[in-house]
């Protein structure tokens, strides 16, 4: 009873047969082989599985793979462009916005969406924007610092990238 899904992940068009009950996160990890998207809680609290679906930050454990049919998805692996890190990735590295790193891809993806909507967020806006992501190592101090730094750099650079391959084209979306 597998169903066909056609979608684009990180700029690459895919077509796969999946069980209707397969969660998007399992599809991303097990079928597409992109293990940078993590599972932390199974119940949509932790945000470690956050990816961009058509530019929106989505906890991929809350969606079925079949629901992503036709969508353009960006995972952490698709954020860097031409070997250059996304400003958020660079800022998380520079500001040590991580320790064990397990929650990091989810935080970065949620932050991409946050800065796309609010390029210069206040501290409160950052905290509210990232409330759906849990970190147990950092106390969030350096995560907030990283988002502030990325925001500043992106604003200074003028016209920030809003999400790697997800900035994605209509052409990519219909491909496959």
């Amino acid at each position, binding site marked *: 009873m597998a169903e066909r899904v056609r979608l684009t992940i990180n700029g690459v068009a895919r077509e796969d047969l999946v069980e209707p009950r397969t969660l998007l996160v399992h599809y991303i990890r097990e079928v597409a082989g992109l*293990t940078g998207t993590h599972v*932390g809680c199974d119940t949509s609290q932790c945000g470690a599985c956050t990816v961009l679906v058509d530019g929106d930050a989505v906890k991929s454990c809350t969606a079925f793979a079949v629901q992503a049919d036709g969508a353009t998805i960006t*995972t*952490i692996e698709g954020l860097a462009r031409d070997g250059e*890190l996304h400003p958020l990735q660079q800022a998380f590295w520079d500001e040590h916005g991580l320790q064990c*790193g397990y929650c*990091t891809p989810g935080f970065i993806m949620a932050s991409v969406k946050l800065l796309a909507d609010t390029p210069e967020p206040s501290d409160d806006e950052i905290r509210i924007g990232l409330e759906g992501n849990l970190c*147990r190592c950092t*106390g969030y101090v350096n995560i907030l*610092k990283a988002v502030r730094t990325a925001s500043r750099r992106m604003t200074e650079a003028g016209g920030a990238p809003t999400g790697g391959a997800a900035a994605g084209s209509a052409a990519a979306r219909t491909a496959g």
Partner: protein
Amino acid sequence: MTTVGGRDEVQRSDASQLRVVGRPLPRTDAAEKIAGSTRYAADLALPAMLHTRLVRSTLPSARLVRRDTARARSLAGVVAVLLGEDVPHNEVWVDVPGQQTEVRALKARSQVLATGRVRYHGQPIALVVAESEDVLAEAEALVDVEYEELPGVFDPEEALGEEAPRVHEDGNLLAEWHIDSGDAATALERAPIVIEGQYRTQFVDHAYLEPEAGVAWLDDDGVITIRASTQVVEHFRDIAAILGVPQARIRVIAPYVGGGFGGKEDMTVEPYLALAVLRTGRPVRMVWTRQESLLARPKRHPMRLRYRTGAENDGTLVAQDIEILADTGAEAYLGALVLLYSSVTAAGPYRCPNVRVRARAVYTNHPPCSAMRGFGAMQVVFGCEAQIDELARRLQLTPDEIRRRNAIREGDRLPVGQQIVTPIWLGETIDQVLRAAGPRPEPSRPHCRVGRGIASNLQPYGRLVWLQDTAAAWIGFQFDGSVTLRCGVPDIGGGQAASLGQIAAEVLGVDPARVTVHFGDSARTPLAGTSTATRQLYMSGNAAHLAATRLRDQTLDAVAEAAGRARGALRLGPGGVEGGGEPIALPRALELVRGLGVPLEVLATFHGPRGRAVARDLAAERVFPDFTVGTHLADVEVDCDTGQIRVVRYLACHDVGRAINPQSVSGQICGGAAMGIGSALTEEIVLESGINLTAGFFQYRIPTALDLPDIEAIALESGAGMGPFGARGIGEPPIGPPAATIANAVRDAIGVRLTELPMTPERVLAAIRAQAHTDPPRPAPTGP
């Protein structure tokens, strides 16, 4: 004083000669973590890989009447279903040290898979192995387990009663420790001031973001290899014992671990993966759900603490009488040792001539309790520091003054008998948080009150001295001058591997980017012991330092001989071998070294201090290598209508000895404080008659970015620690003070002492109401 980003600051003793150590280098492991390319334990997939899952007890205390696997085995895609009878050696024995006379069993027994009875909700009963996760989900439900419910015991005090149901045949007392230093009873009788208090702490979960996971396979030459999320690759020995195979046939690899905090110190997935490989010969993956992790993996011990603290009128401590009752749950694990840490640190970082400690850890039908960051030295801070605070109030001293007056110093002895042998900057940590804090905040709304509190602690770093701790590291130059470092340390997120690279780069004069660290492999990296007990920077750091120093010396000796230069003039630096003439580029210098037949590698082992094992009555010249101290400060706002506590400002200061990587150090301090604030305010594993009601992150609430202020870390560098370059361990120490710091701040804000964790709005309101019957809440009185 050097600013390390934001408000963090690092105070240096003489460190001016250091080139790499002490710099906040962006960590190499971070490059992959931000790219999503780190391969965590669950991320590996192998051809023809199977999947495995545990069937767990649904009751906390029951006899297993029937375990029938026939229906599950007949399901298409199921490869095997294992019961305890299928495990070659199903019994695991845990040492209960120092308990030869008082506890009937010298060792405690537990089962890999339960056969006769189950003792806690979530205990493993059967292991299902199948072709896919989907099949597992179906098969799990087809394993028929019939229970006969048995009476359980769910309260540690009741468990000590004569008539209480026995969790284990030998009785419910797992371990007991006594300290009798001086004469506490007499001193308390004579003391002009005596403060009495009772405190309770709760079950807490580690709640690392990466659930327990691993992949195992049968490698060439019959080696069962288990790549799992663990803090301890040395569990290969335990796994070999369970399987009944030679220890040399088991290899454990720890990839980068998604958080440990003590929860991956005991085995989790490892024995089950090994059993599945042994049975099927195929690669197998096991990933626990968050529910399993919260349900059944060991927790932090809840403790009931009773303190009587006596002082002179000037605030000098004269006596402490301390009783500790710990709920150790249904299995021994490391409960006896956790309780030992509690006992040794219960009197706090203070001089006190008369101390009596009576500590017991008791079995119940609750989930097992074992290691968690702080390892028993955390819970007692909540009691001890409340007592000190109340004492200050009674004497109208400020909280900082009473602590300064009694602060432990080099040369003082702890109640257990151990002398402090390194300069210890407790007073300085108190000064620092007060200086950095500045004026108190104002309430943001009319029905809110603000308060300020401080609390101090001491936490051992390094293992108990009778465990004869060692760590080994191998270091070698490659022909091109790059450096390979092999060390069995698991990297659980604290930058354990990167710090070793930084130490090696410092000693060998190379760019840190030229050092590659291989870590966490029981077969292919020299064993370095567990990433627990705040020991890795101390132990493996010293091993790496020792190996690098020897390699440097033998290299320079050889170059001096081969190039005819004075040895005393030579040093390793960015130019290669420098001094005594033109620099010799490293590859050329290494050619000269090889030409003399001198090796380009060194294997070195660092030995921690050794000591004799303790008995139940604790009295020892030395129990731990050394200690890390610190002081935290919190400004809180309490909403008197809702009972909500908001942490407005939080400062955490520790004497870290030397910050090898200031980024990692302040990261550890902020993270430990945040975890402690979670314990203080929201976190609790709730059990109802042994049934876990908090097996999801929707019920078990760890702090989010909205719940915490920007924690400010202050690292003082006394340079006096026993680690490399004078470092002290910093992994566990910051978890100690937060609960007491916040409770003291709440006391300051509303005049009410909260004595039970977590300090939920309900408890705050109840305490305010109880107080209202005797004495209405007053605005903030004295404070720092």
